């Protein structure tokens, strides 16, 4: 018998450990740079107190906890306090309190670049890991997925989408690090925080409440009442995107808003896509009455005008407990999911029905494969590609939808930052020197929605090379505010 050629993954790994070791080495460097943050996560998320209480209170345990806390305090490469950008300029003495005495703009620029370098390094490490696995350790020399990735290789439009989407995700993940100031001190509770600046009239360093400083840094048209993009205000604070009409920092507002948008978008997409794919597989497998029921349910939901339902529900439910979770973000995601799943379900129903007629489904039935396993193994791989395409397209739609709702003053409650609210706040000043307030968030929404659509196009061309690019009937569907 031919057991000699049988090798497990572990055997292939021990036979040729070089490439895998190199790959893990890169991981060590990446983790070391952020080791403090990793430890902090471990120390703060795991309920050590409870565990420690259950164990006998011995000296080694306490020492261990002390070590853990100390490790959590290690400086990390991407922390705000390693490269601080908040300081003040004293004439003749240069910048005080900033990273190596650089200007706040330069310090902030270095921090942002490092965040993006690190993130793309991490993504590159993942891709490199896949290639190492594929070249050295995978049993099959070729899989159908190789061809899909190969098709994405020359797809510039899709790659553009992927890069922008990654940048957006990094922006959301590292929001607290990226802003020149923090949401807490600048936007949420400006009157509970102070800042120091060099008062030229008094000729000395003075302390002032952030809220009062904000009132002197407003962007309300021209005449000295404007802080535009890449400008300093009179308290030596740097504003990459300028300030809001309230004097708050627009960039900090935007990165925090990215988090909100992404949270709502991803939650909506995972709920709707999960529901859509389960229903599509079940209806395609059983057909008949199951299919008819879901068709009627889906059509009924699709017959509702989505935007009106969104407005209505987010208004009606705005005083309930559910609207309090994540400042209404959860509620929005749920409403989007409930009204948006038929769109995704329709998109994957066709492929699901098509694959359900293949003979390998009959073959699986003939040797008694369980229906759930048949759906997962024999149908899902053919459907998931289409799901990704439409999920990507409607994620863009959801971001527009959320921005549209908050533009109308619905949805995410202030002071939680939301892009649409920035557009709305800047509306009176579009034609003045404070054009940046509406224009920058507006352009960002356009770029990100375009990027999600480009990514969807790329995935579609990779998954289904027969479908010609250009049939964009689904682009930017979904929320459509």
């Amino acid at each position: 018998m031919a057991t000699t050629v049988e090798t497990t993954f572990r055997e292939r790994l021990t036979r040729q450990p070089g490439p895998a070791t190199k790959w893990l080495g890169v991981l060590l460097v990446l983790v070391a740079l952020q080791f403090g943050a990793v430890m902090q996560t471990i120390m703060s998320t795991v309920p050590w107190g409870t565990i420690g209480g259950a164990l006998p209170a011995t000296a080694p345990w306490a020492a261990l906890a002390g070590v853990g806390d100390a490790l959590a305090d290690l400086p990390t490469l991407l922390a705000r306090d390693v490269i601080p950008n908040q300081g003040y300029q004293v004439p003749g003495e240069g910048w005080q309190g900033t990273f190596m005495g650089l200007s706040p703009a330069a310090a902030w620029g270095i921090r942002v670049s490092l965040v993006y370098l690190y993130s793309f390094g991490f993504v590159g490490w993942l891709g490199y890991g896949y290639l190492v696995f594929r070249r050295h350790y995978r049993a099959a020399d070729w899989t159908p997925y190789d061809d899909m990735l190969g098709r994405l290789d020359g797809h510039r439009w899709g790659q553009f989408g992927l890069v922008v989407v990654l940048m957006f995700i990094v922006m959301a993940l590292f929001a607290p690090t990226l802003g020149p100031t923090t949401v807490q001190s600048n936007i949420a509770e400006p009157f509970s925080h102070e800042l120091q600046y060099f008062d030229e009239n008094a000729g000395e360093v003075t302390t002032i409440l952030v809220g009062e400083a904000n009132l002197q840094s407003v962007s309300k048209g021209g005449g000295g009442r404007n802080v535009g993009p890449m400008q300093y205000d009179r308290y030596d604070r740097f504003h990459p995107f300028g300030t809001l009409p309230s004097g708050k920092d627009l960039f900090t507002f935007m990165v925090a808003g990215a988090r909100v948008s992404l949270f709502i978008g991803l939650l909506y997409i995972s709920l709707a896509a999960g529901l859509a794919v389960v229903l599509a597989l079940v209806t395609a497998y059983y057909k008949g009455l199951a299919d008819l029921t879901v068709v009627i349910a889906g059509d009924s939901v699709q017959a509702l005008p989505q935007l009106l339902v969104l407005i209505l529900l987010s208004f009606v439910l705005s005083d309930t407990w559910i609207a309090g979770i994540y400042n209404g973000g959860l509620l929005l995601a749920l409403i989007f999911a409930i009204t948006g799943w038929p769109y995704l379900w329709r998109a994957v129903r066709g492929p699901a029905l098509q694959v359900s007629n293949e003979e390998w489904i009959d073959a699986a039935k003939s040797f008694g494969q369980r229906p759930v396993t048949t759906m997962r193994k024999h149908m899902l791989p053919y459907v998931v590609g289409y799901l990704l395409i439409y999920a990507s397209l409607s994620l863009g739609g959801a971001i527009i939808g959320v921005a549209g709702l908050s533009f109308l003053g619905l949805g995410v409650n202030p002071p939680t930052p939301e892009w649409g609210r920035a557009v709305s706040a800047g509306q009176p000043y579009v034609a003045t020197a404070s054009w940046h307030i509406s224009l920058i968030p507006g352009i960002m929404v356009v770029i990100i929605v375009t990027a999600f659509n480009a990514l969807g196009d790329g995935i579609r061309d990779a998954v289904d090379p027969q479908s010609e690019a250009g049939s964009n009937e689904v682009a930017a569907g979904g929320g459509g505010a």
Partner: protein
Amino acid sequence: MFGDDVDEGDVLVSLCDLKTYYGEDSLLSDDPVKAVDGVSFDIHKGETLGLVGESGCGKTTLGRTLIQLEDATAGEVRIGDTDVTTLTGDDLQRWRRNSQMVFQDPESSLNDRMTVGAIIREPLDVHDWKTPRERRARVRELLDTVGLSEEHYYRYPHQFSGGQRQRVGIARALALEPEFVVLDEPVSALDVSVQAQILNLLNRLQDEFGLTYLFIAHDLSVVRHICDRVAVMYLGNVMELGPTERLFQQPQNPYTHALLSAIPEPDPTADSDRITLTGSPPSPRDPPAGCPFATRCPMKIRPPEYDSVDTEVWARVEMLREVLRERSNADRSLTERAREILGLSSRFSSADEVHDELFADVTLPAAVEDHIEEAMDHVRNDNETRARAQLREAFGSVCDEERPKSHVVDDESGTSRCHRHRDEHDEPSRSQVVSE
């Protein structure tokens, strides 16, 4: 629980009045499609039973019902003491190990997102066969058995030719060591050169593992090459069943006769004594009340009083009945049906044209003409059902009224369904063929 104690040559699978109808439970259904309509025969252990027939005659449905991919409407599939049509749950699951199917289209029967190894291993995984390592070893052994090599384990179906893919399908069917394998046109999608290789492989496997095959095909030369016995199906019924050579050389049933005539003759000068069937089989939603083949049978029994009528004239009369029958089955839109029910009109107003075309160049005997004229009057009054009934009454025979029984027609217990096997009629033979 399955066939282990059955000796070579004994009955392994026994079908008893098996019926599989489609579309009975649907909300908006008309009559069900009677894909398999009362089939009874035995399959002996170790034999290859061929199942032939035109497209749509129900042979694939029969095969699928045998391995419980379709639910039987009535009747039994008996294996030992078990009626497998009544099995459910765990019993059915256990039984499935013993009968497998090789599918027609190797492009569609293998999931091309899985490696060949995973495809062949799946039945073993489903039935928890031994340990995973032993399963992988078994898959390699199977790859070897069907003429592929072990390195193919981690290849994908895309990387194989049609013949190789069909070998993978066969390996998957054999994984659980079944007793009984349904081969659903296993070579019809392959090149002729590859067909022979696959057929030889199937023969070799049958000898090696003592398999019993139900070989579904429409290629008669392949059937003659590989099968021990052949069953001929028409419109959900088995018309004739017998040993291959006897059936091919001395077909007893008119339909077998017609089917065999369709085999192309390599020698163009050969004395051709063909039967070309006219029209198409009746709709399986509304099969004839009597013999399923009655509407197209060239040897149909005539009522005694018309025995003297000219063959050509009789053929025209039968054709008129066929035309009326076809028209009643033709698809009509909802509006047309509504108009008909309301008595407004039907789209069939060309009955006279049909009549003229059929009977313009022949002289009808008076007795025949009277009946036809009466029927035509009914047609003109938009009462085709009445017209059909009237024609059946006038010209119908036992073939139209009674389903023929199975008659033993050779000394190896071959059977044929035809009224002409009854003592009072002539045996079906070529002399009665109505030639075109």
